């Protein structure tokens, strides 16, 4: 069976959905970051698949930008987790609830 663009897009949709559901369901910030990474990499697959399909280099260029920005986002996110765990023993998104209303 030949792998067509559609297969890559299906993979990308699946990864994106897993990431999105995981981000909404899981409560550990580190796991939530991983879910964000899944979503962003789903975007990368989709860009590359479309780029190959269209025979256009734009999709691959986009991936470089997404990769760099994803790395930057995670650095900031981990810094936030460190700041929180310094103040309290564990980092659980449900316990972070001083602010309500």
């Amino acid at each position, binding site marked *: 069976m030949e792998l067509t663009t559609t297969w890559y897009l299906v993979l990308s949709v699946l990864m994106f959905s897993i990431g*999105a559901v995981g981000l909404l369901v899981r409560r550990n910030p580190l796991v939530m970051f991983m879910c964000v990474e899944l979503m962003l990499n789903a975007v990368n697959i989709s860009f590359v698949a479309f780029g190959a399909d269209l025979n256009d280099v734009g999709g691959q*260029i986009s991936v470089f930008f997404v990769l760099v920005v994803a790395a930057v986002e995670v650095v900031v996110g981990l810094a*936030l987790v460190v700041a929180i765990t310094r103040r309290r023993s564990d980092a659980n998104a449900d316990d972070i609830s001083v602010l309500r*209303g």
Partner: protein
Amino acid sequence: MLALLAQQVPDFVRPDIDWHAAAPELTLLTFGALVTMMDIVWLEKGRKLTSIVASIGLLATMVPIITLAVDGADRSMFGGAFVVDDYALIMKAVFILTGYVVILLSTNYIAEGDYWENEYYGLLLSSILGMILMASARDLITIFVALELLSIPAYMLATWRKRDLKSNEAGMKYYLMGVFASAIMLYGMSLLYGGSGSTLLTDINESISGPGDPSAVVVLGIIFVIVGFAFKVSAVPFHTWAPDTYEGAPTPITAFLSVASKAAGFVALMNMLFVGFFGRDDVYEPVIWILAALSMTVGNLIALRQTNMVRLLAYSGVAQAGYMLAPLAVAGDVPDSALAATVGYLVIYAAMNLGAFAVVIAVARKTRTAEIDDYRGLFHWAPGLTVAMTVFLFALAGIPPLGGWWAKFRIMGAVIEANTAAGVVMGIFVAVNSVIALYYYARIGVKMWAEPAPDDDTAPVRVPVSLTSALVLTAAATIAFGVLPGLVGEVTKVSLLAGVGG
């Protein structure tokens, strides 16, 4: 893959760079780097100077913006990915001036609060750099990079009081919602790229616009992109981060997020709607309509029962985002009026909302909280602040002759001018919501003017010079925009449609 790349990439040709067009970004970048370097080289000694250098940097950035405006020519670089036109220049000026007022608000707050000062201003400048880049971005990649450049420093700034759990929580919520939103938006962008074969907004518009039904990929792409920006502008149902982040973040940063960050979200949304999706108003109009109607109604209803001033302003900001989205819901029918109405509203909203936060910061210098009950009897110990707050609140409510009424008037004008059922219903939504909003703005007015101060404590509050000048600037702008509506009317007569022949 490499062979594919090699055969596609022609010989490298250096792109023509119009240095004048890029001058605002380059100036701000220089000063941002300078502020960061000052910390590294001079350590403690540089600390007192950073806020001054940062504000000089912002004022210096205004110079090329003004010379570009005087020159008047539309400039375009990198095949149309970076465009300088009247619309971009107005929004750049709004971002720069907002940033300047935020620095005025921050100076004493940050210096007296035992925070990290140099990094604060460096990050603030890089966030503003992202915003002025966004005003010129007409390409999916440029928009994405600009969005992240303005968001990522903002995540850190929201967590700036890092020993405070509230601030940690504010930053964490903002961060998680922000990256979730940008992932959704990016997925939408990849679908749009797949549906059109280009990342350039004008090419996308050419490729996806009708006649005929849009493909499912394009519809999904448009919806995902709009949802991504709906988070940024805190439109219902994607507003849940806003009140918590606003309450926990340092108040000057709250002012920055609620004005500049929101405006940047709108700028990106308008670039997308008016350049990228212009031919597909059948897809985006209903989505925007729902977001606008929900934001106004839900924002105002929840604001009614808030007891904290910052949370109240957060929900009022959600409702204001609804008003600003309203004309975009008829953007396909009356593009010029819709764009002018939203841009005008952004300009006026910046003045009045920054002013309201300036008063909140000034009052909190004495009360240390932002509870609305602490505003009781404000007139007895801070008559000047009371008058200023009344001006800003009634401007936000849209009472003539203050800035807000003209902004609302234009919104109403645009949605009625569309002359469609959707537009008229939207007009009714705006009218009803303005009445609801008046109730909670006026309630604060009554508390400030008519009730006695708690514990009869009428010791005056000392307001530092920089905060006073921020108050004077914003109050003057709020009143001037209302008394001389032509002022905003003239400068916001802009069009984005040159590129799409509309």
